[in-house]
């Protein structure tokens, strides 16, 4: 089984990449692949063609929605291929009116992840390839623990647990 993953240079993507090596190729902004750019997405699609599973993990603007649509188009008639979309609990909740919004643009993040989820479910009846949408709440990545220093172990799942959910 050969995998491709976006956003493999830190956090959840990095762990998934480590666990699935050497049967995995990775695409990240820091290695020259920006999913908000059409020509970069086209290269990602092309270079992933002989993989069996594509993990749509990187989150950058609405790029992951574009990434999903373009990958699903390429694999539409291939029932043995699989696309895994990495969502977030934020697409499942109603955000409080104000506080979060000002602090970290949570509404932008919510709109992006909700778009990925909606597009995933809209695509399902249109393609023959397999597709899953997986989500979780906070994961104990470096950036989350730095951002929320008051978190205890009960406030997040481990990176490995997140990878298990993605691959389930």
């Amino acid at each position: 089984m050969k995998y491709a993953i976006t956003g493999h240079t830190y956090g959840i993507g990095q762990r998934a990449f480590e666990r699935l090596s050497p049967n995995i190729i990775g695409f990240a902004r820091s290695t020259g692949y920006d999913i908000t750019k059409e020509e970069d997405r086209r290269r990602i699609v092309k270079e992933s063609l002989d993989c069996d599973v594509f993990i749509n993990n990187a989150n950058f603007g609405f790029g992951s929605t574009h990434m999903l649509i373009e990958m699903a188009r390429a694999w539409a008639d291939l029932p043995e291929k699989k696309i895994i979309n990495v969502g977030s609990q934020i697409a499942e909740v109603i955000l409080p009116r104000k506080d979060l919004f000002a602090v970290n643009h949570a509404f932008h993040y919510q709109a992006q992840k909700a778009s990925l989820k909606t597009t995933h479910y809209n695509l399902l009846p249109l393609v023959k390839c397999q597709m899953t949408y997986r989500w979780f709440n906070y994961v104990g990545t470096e950036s989350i623990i730095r951002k929320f220093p008051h978190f205890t172990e009960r406030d997040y799942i481990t990176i490995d647990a997140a990878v298990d959910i993605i691959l389930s």
Partner: protein
Amino acid sequence: MKYAITGHTAGIGRRALQRLDALGFSRSTGYDISNAEDRQRIVYESRNCDVFINCAHAGFASTYMLLDIYYAWQDLPNKTIINVGSRITEIELPKDRRDLLTYQAEKLALKETVARINSLTPVCSVKYRWFAYVGTEKILNKYPHFKQGDYITEDQAVDIILS
């Protein structure tokens, strides 16, 4: 009543601008809604308007435009934000129209963001208005076989937006 409108140099937006007392913002006049700084300028320059018509379509940027103007207006009564959607959010795409998936995802992001904002019961009013094909120059050039029954007029589209 003072209006602000994005995408006022073509099609429906241009017609709306002709009919209303409105400020216009478009790429050709120096306001690109895909650019966060340009959106901030639009929000600032629209501050004295009563109604904001989020008409321009540029990828997912109209969702960002909505969120930015909503953030500025959320606690202001008597302000209205009208989002121009499309019938594409109301239908299931046929299998042979995968080419429309991106456009559908963009308009759905706008529609669902309006729904999420309204679930917060904002003080300002936030609306989503949609229609199918409109007889703009661009549409008529693209679909030369269209007959009158296949589309609504620009004026009818503006009526729906303002309803």
